[in-house]
């Protein structure tokens, strides 16, 4: 023992003589694939995927809850940025699931290590394995369930997934620190050394298992990534969304019925109110809006759940509406919907987005008036913005300084 003063090592030494049978017994897990070389290689890939998920998750969080502090403000361009980061977020989460499952299989025998900890350092490392595995399974399951809008729990998904993401990153860093030495050794060791016995006939090799992992990642990715990556749309057999299925060929998250606006959205007396920090508060009818200069933009609608679909939107620039009401220069805008249900009734446009030439109050989608489910009579469409903030069934633009 290296640390004779270590109480864990002291206990471990006495436990060694009392090895239980069953899974704790010598040679209980004979498969050679329970191997640190596999665990380390799968672990590296998982680490990259998890860090990618965390970074893109943070991007999504701050896109939905903008800091609006100088350079940290969500930029309006590139307009496709959020589409990429959120597509990557969901895709990396899906792709990492087979890696996690296979890694857990590989290291499962370590659960029955005897003695349970050989010294204090080993005890520290093992203490954080359970929270790591539990949080990793939780993040991947809750994220996957959310893409299908399946909520078997009571907590709010977005808030919880965000905070448990930090917790997962924390235990992951601890795990990497504790496993660094062993991982480096394992990665330096070839999968099949000259001293290793050749795989017996009928035995999956270590390389074979890694190919299996790659094939599983490919299978789950190819059958879902088409929900955001249009060229693979035809292969998205298991995706919860398809970019061209929905009213007017575009998917919908919250329907007019779900938002409780079936009557109010069709009311002929509907008026758009522009108020707040403006010289002249305005009330505009749909005909008034149609009479203004119309602009067209190609922008994606990107949902946090991982799907996205591009469309051509037509309507009035928010900047034109602000100018018409005589809003102060550099005004921000709070866009409010007539919807009575849902937590995204309104959204804020910072100065950059409000004044951007591609930020429209859209009346048309692909040259047709908006379907009720897409936000008729008018909806917000702005570049680089999560779908939940592209407020539909707009009633009020409130300018503020």
């Amino acid at each position, binding site marked *: 023992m290296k640390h004779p003063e270590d109480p864990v090592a002291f206990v471990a030494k006495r436990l060694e003589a009392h090895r239980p049978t069953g899974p704790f017994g010598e040679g209980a897990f004979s498969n050679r694939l329970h191997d640190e070389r596999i665990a380390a290689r799968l672990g590296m890939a998982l680490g990259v995927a998890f860090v990618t998920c965390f970074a893109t998750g943070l991007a999504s969080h701050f896109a939905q809850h903008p800091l609006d502090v100088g350079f940290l403000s969500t930029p309006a361009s590139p307009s496709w940025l959020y589409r990429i980061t959120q597509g990557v977020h969901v895709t990396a989460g899906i792709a990492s699931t087979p890696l996690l499952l296979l890694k857990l299989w590989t290291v499962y025998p370590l659960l029955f290590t005897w003695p349970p900890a050989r010294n204090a350092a080993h005890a520290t490392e093992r203490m954080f394995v359970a929270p790591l595995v539990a949080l990793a399974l939780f993040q991947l399951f809750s994220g996957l369930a959310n893409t299908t809008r399946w909520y078997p729990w009571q907590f709010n998904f977005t808030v919880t997934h965000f905070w*448990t993401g930090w917790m997962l990153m924390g235990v992951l*860093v601890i795990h990497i620190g504790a496993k660094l030495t062993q991982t480096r050794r394992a990665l330096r060791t070839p999968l099949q050394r000259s001293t290793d016995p050749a795989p017996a006939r009928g035995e999956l090799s270590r390389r074979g298992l890694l190919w299996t992992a790659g094939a599983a990642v490919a299978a789950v990715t190819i059958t879902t990534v088409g929900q955001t990556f249009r060229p693979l749309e035809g292969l998205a057999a298991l995706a919860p969304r398809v970019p061209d*299925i929905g009213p007017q060929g575009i998917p919908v998250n919250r329907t007019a019925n779900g938002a409780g606006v079936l009557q109010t959205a069709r009311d002929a007396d509907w008026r758009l109110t522009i108020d707040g920090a403006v010289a002249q508060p305005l009330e505009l009818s749909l005909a008034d809006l149609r009479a203004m200069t119309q602009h067209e933009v190609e922008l994606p609608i990107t949902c946090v759940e991982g799907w996205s679909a591009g469309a051509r939107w037509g309507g009035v620039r928010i900047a034109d509406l602000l100018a018409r009401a005589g809003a102060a220069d550099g005004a921000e805008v709070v866009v409010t919907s007539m919807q009575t249900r849902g937590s995204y009734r309104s959204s804020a446009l910072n100065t950059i987005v409000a004044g951007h030439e591609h930020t429209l109050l859209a009346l048309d989608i692909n040259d047709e008036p908006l379907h009720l489910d897409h936000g008729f009579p008018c909806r917000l469409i702005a570049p680089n913005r999560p779908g939940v903030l592209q407020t539909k069934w707009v009633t009020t633009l409130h300018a503020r300084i």
Partner: protein
Amino acid sequence: MATVERNTPHDAPDPSATALRLGLAVGGAVFAFGLYGLLRNSAQTVPLDVLKWIAGPLILHDALVAPAVLAAGLVLARLLPVAIRAGMQATLTVCAIVVVMSVPVLKAVGRRPDNPSLLPHDYPQNLAVVIAVILTGGTLLTLARAARARRAGA
């Protein structure tokens, strides 16, 4: 010996004390920040419910799923002829992972009559097709490898 030699506790190298301490300091702070946020927003995060959904999958996996998978692996190894064993194990592993990950779309709990764009496919049928493709591809690869091995051996 570089295998994960469980029950030989002297094999795995001890972590470098610096890496372990640094990891604990940085990772511990990040974890604490997350836990603090989770508890501070308890109205939305419902920490006891989160605990249930964090501990549940862990226990489910370690106590039921993993032993079942290991047992299934043993049974498969007995049933499959040696020549195609490894290839078919790999193929069936991919199939099992695809099936497990399809549970949410198969359940389709989120489907709503007023929103045809949500979960638009016939997922049981699509899953059957995907599994058939993987099985076919995996079987062909396995047979090709077995034939090559036989030629090399002959």
